Structure formats: C-alpha cells, structure tokens
C-alpha cells in the first residue's frame, strides 16, 4: 500500500512501505547492502551531507549506556560534490527512493548545498537536519533557504522535543513533511571519566518521542509526520502510526539487528492493507484499481 509523503506533482514522493532508516545509520548507500534487503524499505536516507567536507569529532565517539548508547561522530563526510561523485551511480540503481539528508551551519550554506543536490536525478527528496537550538523563526529561515532552491520534496527533521510551532514554521516555509525527531542529545562519562556529549539511542527514547509526535499530530491535523526515535520492534513502529505518524524512521537498533528494518517494512505494509494510514483518496483509488501510484 503506497504512502504519499509529499503533494502530487513532478517530484512527488510516494513510499511503497512507510519505513525507512534514519540519517546517519546506514551510510551513503552500499555499506549495508550485504545485510539488508533494501527493496523491503520505503526509502533510503543518506548519512548527513554538508556543502564542504566535515571532519570527524575528536575524543570519545561512542559510550555504551545501560540499554543504549551515546554517539558523537561529528558527521564526517567529504562534502556534497564528492558525495555525488562517489554515490550518484549507486543511487540511480537503488530499488527505492533516495532521500539526501542535508546539514548546514547557516541558511546560505544550506541553500548552496540544496542547489547542488537539486540537480541530481538520483535524489528523490531532501531531508533538512535542523540544529537543536533553533527557534521557530530560524527553522523557517533554513527551510525557506532550501525550498527556494528546489522543487523536490522537502522533509524537515526537527530537534528532539521541538514543538508544533517548530513544525508549523517548517511547513509554512515550504516543508512537505516533518521528521520527528533527531535523536536527543545527552552527556555521559567515558571510560576515562571525561564528560562527553552526543546523541542518545535506545528503547527509552521511544516513549519520550511518541508523546510529542502525538501532540504535534493533534495540533496540526493533516500534517505528514515521519516519526523517528527508539524504534526497536514492529510494535514500536505501529505505535507511532497509531499516534498519527504517516511513516517511521528506524535508527540505531539496525546496527545490532540489521534485519529489523525489513521486518518492520513487511509488518507495516501488511498493516496498511487493512488500516490505511496517511493515505489520500487519490492514492487509495489508484491502489484499489491496480494502477501505479506514481
């Protein structure tokens, strides 16, 4: 059962199944291909891409926590131009849409990066990774800077705990969908007792995220919400759809259990056959008549 993420049009984003990986989990494309059946996913989200190369973080990058982990990579990547050189051919052969996850320090930088990625046919949509400390007005600047440089579907990934006001600001500026959320930030001591900051992963993230996803869905009826945070089972993913999400992104659980993505994909595809979620009338009609949705 296809799920529409963006408005109908030239670059409409429609997923065959409402599950994808979160940015930063599966690399840029080929790293997990021996271990994951990508055809079972709705889309593939790339690792963060920046306009210029970013170096890896210094110091401790990974701290194991009880039933979780803190990870701080610094989002190393060779910059948008090199990423395209390395991966555009691979992406063009992917069985599913490729969503490029873009990060920038400033709206101007975002604009330049989006302009470069917009020309790339192998990219179906763009996901904007927004920093943690942005006010709703600043969210609007970033999304506006991106939206004016592309006609491709834009997904705005908000920081953990962002409110419906952040989501509304992103939608008003031109985002087609809201990704809720980036993993929350935390601080923990490394084995040498140094305090280290990073993003938190683990099952406990889900209850925190689920509540806010439900709140945004209620405050912004009709919004296309892609929920992300702490999904570790098929039941976790279903909970997000129950809370009003249209699709889900799975993060660090995939590192331990790579087959989880495909299991969730199959489970949600089956679920949607009996209980459409995030489906518009046109798509439902196409599905029932057997005509392709794209």
């Amino acid at each position: 059962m296809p799920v529409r993420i963006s408005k109908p049009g030239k670059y409409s984003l429609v997923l065959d199944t409402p599950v994808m990986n979160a940015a930063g989990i599966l690399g840029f494309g080929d790293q997990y291909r021996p271990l994951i059946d990508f055809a079972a996913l709705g889309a593939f989200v790339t690792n963060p891409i920046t306009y210029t190369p970013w170096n890896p973080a210094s110091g401790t990058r990974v701290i194991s926590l009880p039933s979780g982990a803190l990870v701080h990579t610094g989002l190393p990547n060779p910059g948008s131009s090199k990423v395209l050189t390395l991966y555009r051919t691979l992406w063009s052969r992917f069985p599913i849409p490729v969503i490029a996850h873009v990060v920038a320090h400033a709206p101007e930088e975002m604009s330049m990066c989006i302009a470069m990625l917009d020309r790339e046919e192998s990219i179906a949509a763009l996901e904007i990774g927004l920093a943690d400390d942005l006010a709703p007005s600043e969210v609007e600047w970033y999304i506006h800077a991106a939206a004016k440089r592309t006609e491709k579907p834009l997904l705005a990934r908000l920081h953990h705990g962002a409110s419906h006001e952040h989501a509304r600001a992103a939608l008003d500026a031109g985002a087609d969908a809201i990704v809720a959320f980036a993993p929350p930030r935390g601080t923990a001591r490394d084995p040498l007792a140094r305090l280290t900051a990073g993003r938190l992963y683990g099952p406990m993230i889900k209850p925190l995220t689920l509540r806010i996803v439900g709140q945004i869905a209620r405050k912004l009826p009709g919004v296309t919400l892609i929920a992300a945070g702490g999904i570790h089972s098929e039941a976790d993913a279903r909970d997000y759809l129950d809370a009003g999400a249209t699709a889900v992104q799975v993060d660090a659980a995939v590192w331990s259990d790579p087959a989880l993505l495909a299991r969730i994909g199959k489970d949600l595809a089956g679920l949607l056959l009996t209980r459409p979620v995030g489906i518009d009338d046109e798509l439902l009609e196409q599905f029932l008549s057997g005509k392709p949705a794209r």
Partner: protein
Amino acid sequence: MNQTQAIIERVRRVSDSHQRLSLAVESSVLNIKPGQSLLVRQTNNWEPYLRETWYPVSIDNNLLVVERPGAQHYAPGSVIDLIAPIGSPFRFRKTLRSILLIAQDTPPTPLLYALLPLLVNRIAVTLVLLGSARTYATEHLPPEVEIVRGDGDGLTWQNQVTAVGWADQVLAVVSPDREMEQFRALWLLFRELRADIPANYLFAVHTPTLPCGVGACGACTVRLQGGTALACVEGPALDMTRLSFSP
C-alpha cells in the same frame, strides 16, 4: 560480509584474566584472516545495546577460537549472532623476517591470530607488553614467541633500540579509550629511535567501539593526512605514516 549464527561449543579459561571460546561457525566464517574480527550479539534483548567486537585467535578442529575477558560468563551451547568478517586483513611485507607486536594498556588479543601463520612462515615474533598489558599472562601462547614486558608504566622496555632496529614491521594496539594519544606517543618514540619510518613499517591497530562495523555510522573515522579512513573497513591496521596526529 555475512550475518550468521554460531554456537559456543567450548569455554576454556587460559589465564586468570582471559578465557577462550570455541565457536561452531559457518564455513565461510573460517576464512577470516588475521586482523579481521567478528561483531557479536549474544542476546535478543538490548543489553548490551551495541554488538561486541570479538577477536579470533586460532582455528581448532574447524572451530573458530576467540579470546574474551575472563570476567564475562559464557555458556556452552548458547547461540550467538555474528556479522563477519569485519575489517581488512593485516598486510604483511613479502620480505618479512621479523615482526614486533606491541600491546599497551590493553590485552594483545587483536594481534594473536597472526601468531600461527607468522611462525609457520618462520617469521621471528616478539610481543612487547606495556603498561597494564604487562599483567597479561602468556603461558598459553606459542613458546616460539619472544615475550618482553615493559619497564614501569611508560613506553620503555629492555633492548628497545635493538628490537626497533631489528623488526621489519611493527603492529601496535593501544587502549581504545586513548587511541590517538597513545599512537602519537608511539610514533614519536619510533621517530626518536629510527632515522626514518618507511611506509608499511609501523601500523596502528585501531580497536574502537564499533556501532555498525560496516563503514556506515562514521564513528570509527580516523583522520589521515589529507583525508580520512574508516577503522572498521580499511583497518584495523593503518599505516602510522598516513595518520594525522594534529588535534
């Protein structure tokens, strides 16, 4: 690389601090080479959350033998989930006659799988144990391996100048918590002891915690001079002449 399952067939304590597990694995996993490792998940719950890196040390009767800390409990008959092989094999010089293995503040386990093939090829092997690695018991290692323990907690050991000059190649593993700091100190030591450090001579064996192990997450990215490398893909052994030690 494959995801597969294995059975712990045997658990044998080899010293006060370490034990060895004999794993029944798929035949493809037995092709694992020195330098490569396994990413292991032991349970279906999320504790521990990330997979653990297990290092093979030998193959015995078609069972893959790994070395693990003695404090961990493993039950014969238990099934574990593997992703393997992780990383690239060690690249030994074709003209290799003698090799120096160094472990500082960490057990030498990631280096041990290389011992047998090196000895079979009549390569002279010296294992230097520094810092907390000095307490690593070595009675279970092949008697042909020369064991040298460091003086105190620093980077000195007996006949250091001779050993550094004599070795054709050096592989060093250090504490994963202070990797770049300790590799830098080793690099400076070798620069002091040798007129020059050629390429393919001194290797840093990286053993950070690997969230994904396949080159996707970027957590094990190592800075090189003019680029980066992923320890889980191009490593674990990276030529120290390529590393960037700047903060």
